[in-house]
């Protein structure tokens, strides 16, 4: 115990120590001597504290990367920081490679903020800017990474915010409207490219030296066609600017182009009146919601001074208020509609906007209807763009149909199955997948009464699902697409099973498609997956009551248990997961005893033993039992690999077991053994990855290995090797587009490995 420090003394000690720490080591003693003068006790306390400063032994070193401005990025020399946003820092930079002189703005992810969500957003903004080419939108010039942090280079606008510019230069009403129309054009251009800006406000529009308004900051913009649920959630959580946020944005409801119209309306209000429609500073959130969602917007002519009132009364009032309707359907649906009305006003034509009243209410339905039509049109355009393949327009000439059927039913899948275990097959499989899916979709439309065809189609969809994203198999990492394919397969199998209750093939196929569908559910949908598995298991168990299941159906049932155990593990019901897991293993072992040639049962037994080991190790904390299961799995893996030494599947299976075993070794204190085994796993997976760079699963596992390896090496104080591991990991992650990764875990790994690799 330290003796209690007398009051007041500590403040002195703290000051002197903190000052001393800011000096080079050599100068500290002199400084302390001077600062403490004759106070021996003070000096003693200060020196004791300072003596504890030992740079060689780490202590509470939880420091994250210090913010460090790059000196240059490619041909650009950083001049100074010009802004700091929620996720990035913006620098002014100059191109000085002698080519030509150009000032640019560089936005780079802030150190320490390079989390998965932020990096994702950042890439999204870059992608969005890349899509937009418009004279009134800042241009994206370049992009890259600096110390593993993404950055992009934009046009630098040396300008003044729109409203301030209009005020300073005393723009007339017509001139203000003309500037605003340019902004509308820019927003319309974004909408046409399926992009919502979502943060339109006076501060985000600068007028450059030439008097051209430029729209900037697409930091919280959204791609309309991005269907990823996760992306939507993350975006929904983004902060916004309360002054210009629409009621639906405040309430967290889905946003449409009409939401941007609302923000444009706010901007127009401010331009015409000279001040914003609401002042929302220093209000509580509840008040804010009330104001934006309920309070009536003042009429511009009333809010503006008397001299402007006459100009604003009537059409301009109505145009602004129509843009600011609380209900999105009552507004202009697009920026172009708002612009059109303003142009009509400028030309002296009657405008669309009317003061609210009975006449308006009669048109309300039409307004709503128009909105849904607009959405339908956007969707139709997107589909037409994506599906240009002539095959889809193929008509049902019967010969052509038979050819298609043959191609999709046999050739493509024989080809697919033949290449699946080969190293490097993923790219070819992707092509097969794409083609086959096109064939299948076109055939499915013809299949109404044809049960045989349905069976073929169902099998086809199931196989496609496997290629897209089967858990525990090499796959393309397209979980969502796989889920769709499995769902289609299950629906078709179910139809066949209804038509032919005794068809074992249909029943079996249905079970498998459902099991695989269930394992693709992520996040909040997991419960759905579990339901599906339990339902399927119940069906199979009922069938088992009537007659013993054949080998294939036994494997199906075991796979239901396999999947249920995975789900239960995720739900943290470890004991239940253990029970289900043991049931799966018993069933698989029995199937294998009945027919030692049942390869499927053999492989799934090995996989299930691995997951049993995982469960024992990470949830039940019984490393001995984990080791036992994993050794059994290892024996099967080796047997399978001996039988087929070239098989990438067999190699990947073996690597998974060794991956888990390395963790057992490490956790039981055998650090050297764990590291050695993990290094072997890394080597094996790196080879598999080198041969098959499109294989998402191997890539993900390899990346996670490097992260773990780096962490372990660091703990062993083998810094240089740790760094090398993180850097290798960063290389694996390098081609991975965080936008394309839908798996939060993988995105977090990518962010982490990049951080670690750039840290020292």
């Amino acid at each position: 115990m330290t003796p209690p420090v007398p009051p007041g003394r500590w403040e002195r000690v703290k000051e002197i120590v903190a000052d001393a720490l800011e000096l080079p080591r050599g100068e500290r003693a002199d400084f302390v001597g001077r600062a403490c003068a004759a106070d021996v006790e003070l000096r003693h306390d200060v020196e004791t504290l300072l003596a504890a400063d030992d740079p060689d032994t780490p202590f509470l070193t939880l420091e994250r990367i210090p913010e460090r401005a790059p000196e240059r990025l490619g041909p650009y020399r950083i001049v100074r920081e010009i802004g700091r946003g929620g996720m990035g820092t913006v620098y002014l930079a100059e191109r000085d490679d002698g080519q030509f002189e150009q000032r640019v703005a560089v936005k780079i992810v802030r150190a320490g903020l390079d989390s998965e969500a932020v990096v994702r957003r950042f890439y999204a903004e870059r992608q969005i800017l890349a899509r937009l080419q418009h004279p009134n939108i800042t241009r994206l010039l370049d992009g890259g990474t600096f110390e593993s942090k993404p950055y992009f280079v934009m046009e630098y606008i040396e300008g003044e915010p729109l409203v301030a510019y209009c005020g300073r230069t005393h723009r007339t009403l017509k001139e203000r409207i003309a500037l605003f129309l340019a902004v509308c054009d820019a927003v319309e251009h974004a909408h046409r490219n399926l992009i919502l800006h979502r943060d339109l406000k006076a501060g985000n529009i600068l007028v450059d030296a030439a008097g051209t308004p430029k729209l900037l900051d697409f930091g919280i913009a959204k791609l309309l066609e991005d269907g990823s649920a996760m992306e939507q959630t993350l975006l929904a959580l983004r902060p916004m600017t309360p002054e210009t946020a629409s009621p639906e944005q405040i309430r967290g409801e889905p946003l449409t182009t009409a939401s941007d119209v609302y923000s444009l309306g706010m901007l127009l209000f401010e331009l015409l009146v000279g001040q914003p429609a609401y002042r929302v500073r220093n209000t509580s959130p509840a008040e804010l919601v009330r104001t934006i969602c309920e309070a009536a917007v003042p009429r511009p002519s009333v809010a503006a001074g008397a001299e402007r009132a006459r100009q604003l009364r009537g059409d301009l009032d109505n145009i602004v208020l129509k843009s600011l309707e609380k209900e999105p359907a009552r507004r202009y649906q697009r920026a172009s509609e708002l612009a059109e009305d303003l142009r009509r006003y400028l030309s002296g034509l009657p405008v669309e906007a009317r003061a609210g009243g009975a006449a308006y209410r009669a048109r309300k339905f039409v307004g709503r209807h128009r909105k849904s039509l607009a959405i339908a049109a956007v969707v139709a355009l997107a589909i037409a763009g994506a599906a240009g393949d002539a095959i889809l327009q193929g008509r049902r000439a019967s010969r052509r149909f038979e050819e298609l059927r043959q191609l999709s039913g046999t050739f493509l899948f024989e080809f697919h199955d033949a290449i699946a275990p080969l190293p490097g097959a993923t790219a070819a499989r992707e092509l097969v997948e794409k083609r086959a899916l096109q064939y299948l979709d076109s055939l499915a439309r013809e299949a109404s009464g044809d049960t045989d065809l349905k069976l073929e189609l169902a099998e086809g969809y199931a196989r496609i699902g496997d290629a897209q994203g089967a858990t525990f198999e090499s796959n393309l990492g397209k979980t969502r697409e796989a889920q769709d394919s499995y769902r289609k397969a299950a629906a078709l199998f179910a139809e066949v099973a209804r038509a032919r209750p005794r068809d074992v093939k249909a029943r079996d196929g249905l079970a498998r498609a459902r099991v695989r569908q269930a394992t693709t559910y992520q996040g909040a949908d997991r419960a759905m997956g579990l339901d599906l598995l339990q339902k399927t298991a119940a069906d199979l168990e009922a069938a088992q009551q009537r007659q013993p299941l054949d080998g294939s159906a036994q494997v199906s049932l075991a796979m239901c248990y396999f999947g249920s155990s995975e789900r239960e593990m995720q739900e943290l019901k470890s004991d239940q997961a253990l029970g289900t897991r043991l049931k799966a293993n018993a069933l698989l072992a029995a199937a294998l005893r009945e027919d030692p040639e049942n390869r499927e049962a053999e492989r799934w037994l090995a996989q299930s033993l691995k997951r049993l080991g995982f469960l024992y190790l990470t949830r039940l904390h019984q490393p001995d039992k984990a080791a036992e299961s994993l050794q059994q799995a290892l024996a099967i893996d080796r047997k399978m690999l001996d039988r087929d030494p070239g098989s990438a599947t067999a190699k990947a299976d073996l690597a998974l077991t060794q991956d888990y075993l390395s963790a057992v070794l490490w956790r039981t204190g055998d650090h050297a053994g764990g590291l050695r085994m993990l290094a072997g796993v890394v080597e094996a997976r790196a080879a598999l990855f080198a041969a098959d760079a499109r294989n998402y699963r191997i890539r993900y596992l390899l990346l996670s290995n490097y992260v773990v390896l780096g962490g372990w090496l660091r703990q062993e104080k083998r810094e240089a090797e740790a760094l090398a591991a993180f850097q290798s990991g960063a290389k694996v992650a390098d081609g991975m587009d965080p936008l394309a990764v839908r798996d939060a875990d993988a995105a977090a790994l990518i962010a982490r490995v990049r951080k670690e690799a750039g840290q020292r």
Partner: protein
Amino acid sequence: MADVAALLIRWQDGDKSALDEMLPEVYDELRRLARIYLSRERPDHTLQPTELVHEAYMRLVAQHSVDWRNRAHFLGVAAQVIRRVLLHHAENRSAQKREGYSNRVTLDTALACLERDSTVDIQTLNRALERLAEVDARQGQIVELRVFGGLTVEETAEVMKLSAATVKRDWSVARLWLRKELS
């Protein structure tokens, strides 16, 4: 579900009971997030408090509130929760050794890596930190935020309404104090 955003405002306004109402909610969210991280095909976990805390903030607060000043307060609360969880974990583990009880709480497991990476024992650190807080409450809180919440100097400054320079000075002195105390 308690509205964490609203509770934060009450807490800011001086209502001490709001903190107690908030803690279980924050704890549950942290645990739920930890579970997601743990449920994957990977036998080892690399979860850092920083990631957890920021993600939890996005979900619990940013979603319900447009007032982003709440962020600082939330980070402070989350750091407290994590400190308690880690302590609890360490205590349980000693109990586990005695009783052969197998502990399966996710957040503990997820954060175990923090403990493994750390060069000091959590319980010892906690005791020293309590003593530091008696000598210098401000330094005690800075250490809590930085070590358990994974906050940067700037974030800590934001939470404590201090300048970054002050936080930096206090942090460097506090580190020395703890180091001396633990040696």
